[in-house]
């Protein structure tokens, strides 16, 4: 190794990294939007292939169900514990703990955490699979036979992901709530009867939870497929595509979470009590 400058001036690199990230984000959103539009087009005009969708539902849903439910179970216990300990610092009793936890689960935690895990588990999988096909020229073979990879490969994953995220959210949210209930009993001696309380869940909470499911379920397969389809080059290309898929879909989940939560509160905040 020579002492020739291997790296540019640090300040330039840091600012450059931020600027680069901004440009890259804009460009990615732009071309991923193209994939999204084509997916919607093929939903209406494309081939009908219930078999492929079912297979993807199995891949995306059943494979993730245990993973996501397990993690959400642990998360349920931790959140009840941390929330309870903190609430005890300001409030005399924990009678609202269960109701508040349910409200938070419905409007945010269940869809968002399930989606973050789906972004990792499924986003990486989609990108690795499509990326491998891209670098081994299987995609070009598809195109040569006049089949758009978006129709054949992206559309089934798109539909499956939206459907399965709803299922995952409901199942893993239920697991989290059940585990939280056990946690509340063990740590704070709260009876299940006082913990199970849906009085704080209103239509706005339900609505924003559902909108989040839909938005995440659509964003994850599109961004991941986009990362995989645009893989070019050798053995590092598939790895890079997989990395991009995880990062882009996780960031999308967090950004959409903020946007939808903010929007719901700004529009219907007065209604929600």
């Amino acid at each position, binding site marked *: *190794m020579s002492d020739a400058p291997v*790296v540019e001036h640090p300040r330039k*690199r*840091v600012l450059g*990294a*931020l600027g*680069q*990230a*901004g440009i890259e984000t804009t460009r990615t959103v732009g071309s991923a939007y193209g994939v999204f539009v084509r997916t919607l087009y093929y939903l209406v005009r494309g081939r009908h292939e219930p078999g492929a969708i079912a297979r993807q539902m199995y891949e995306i849903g059943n*494979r993730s169900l245990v*993973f996501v439910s*397990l*993690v959400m179970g*642990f998360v349920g216990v*931790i959140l009840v*514990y*941390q929330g309870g300990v*903190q609430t005890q610092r*300001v409030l005399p009793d924990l009678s609202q703990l269960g109701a*508040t936890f349910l*409200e938070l689960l419905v409007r945010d935690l269940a869809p968002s955490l399930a989606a*973050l895990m789906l*972004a*990792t*588990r499924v986003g*990486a*999988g989609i*990108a*690795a*699979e*499509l*990326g*491998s*096909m891209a*670098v*081994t020229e*299987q995609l070009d073979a598809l195109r040569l036979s006049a089949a758009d990879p978006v129709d054949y490969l992206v559309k089934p994953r798109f539909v499956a992901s939206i459907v399965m995220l709803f299922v995952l959210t409901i199942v893993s949210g239920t697991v989290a709530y059940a585990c939280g209930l056990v946690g509340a009993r063990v740590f704070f001696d709260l009876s299940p009867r006082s913990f199970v309380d849906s009085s704080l869940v209103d239509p706005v909470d339900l609505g924003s939870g559902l909108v989040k499911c839909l938005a995440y379920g659509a964003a994850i397969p599109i961004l991941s497929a986009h990362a995989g389809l645009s893989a070019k080059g*050798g*053995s*590092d290309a*598939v*790895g*890079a*595509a*997989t*990395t991009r898929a*995880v*990062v882009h879909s*996780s*960031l999308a989940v*967090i*950004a959409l*979470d*903020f946007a939808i*939560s*903010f929007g719901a*509160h700004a529009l219907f*905040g007065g209604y*929600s*009590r």
Partner: protein
Amino acid sequence: MSDAESGARDEARSASEAPLRLAGRLALLLAAIGRAVAEGELDRRMFVKSLYETGVRSLPIVVLTALFTGGIMVVQAAPIVERYGAHGLLGWGAGFGTLREIGPLLTALMISGRVGANNTAELGTMVVTEQLDALRALAIDPVGFLIAPRFLAIVTTLLLATLFADALALVGAAYVGAALLGVDPAVFYTGLTSGLLGFGDVAHGLVKSVVFGVVIALSSCHYGLATTGGAPGVGRSVNAAVVVSAAGVFLCDFFVSFLIA
């Protein structure tokens, strides 16, 4: 198509590799790293280089994640705080969740996706192109030269990133609180510092971030080193690494929360 599908099956098999055996492998890797460091085999220059690269790579994503996290925490804390009419508690409400749980967790997940995945891809590529064997052929210990520097760089970066993300998230939360609820940022900061939250809450999060860093660094190095089967193999390794990292982070969050409570 059938290639890719059997690939996905292999990936699932390696990701669901018997958890105990995986834990054993990770422990052995950790021991090897510890031994390399203890015996002075750590290549300092590679460490500085890795640290710099992980840092630069993480910065944009940590900034974005932190700002969104702050915003989300305020929006979620808002109804609870409004219910009790206690705007002075908004800083506390958004603060404890951020410091103890969401800050360390989201920062770890994002760095796992960005840096951990990248590390697996780089190591995996080096393995399938025999660059790792080339190091051994030159009598250079790959653990001291490549693995230990990357491991330490990831752990250090995650710790610093969490500290930075905590601060940034709370600043973001203060301004979202002002925009959404009309709570003056000064009131927000008072809520943060009024004594309900202390250094313990920050430390709680930082201890977790070190544990998360170890989990992410170990699994990303392990899957990189275990790569076989060319370019698709690298993709499968990255996939397995991020899944195991995420599961490991959540599991450790559970145990560490109670251990240091």
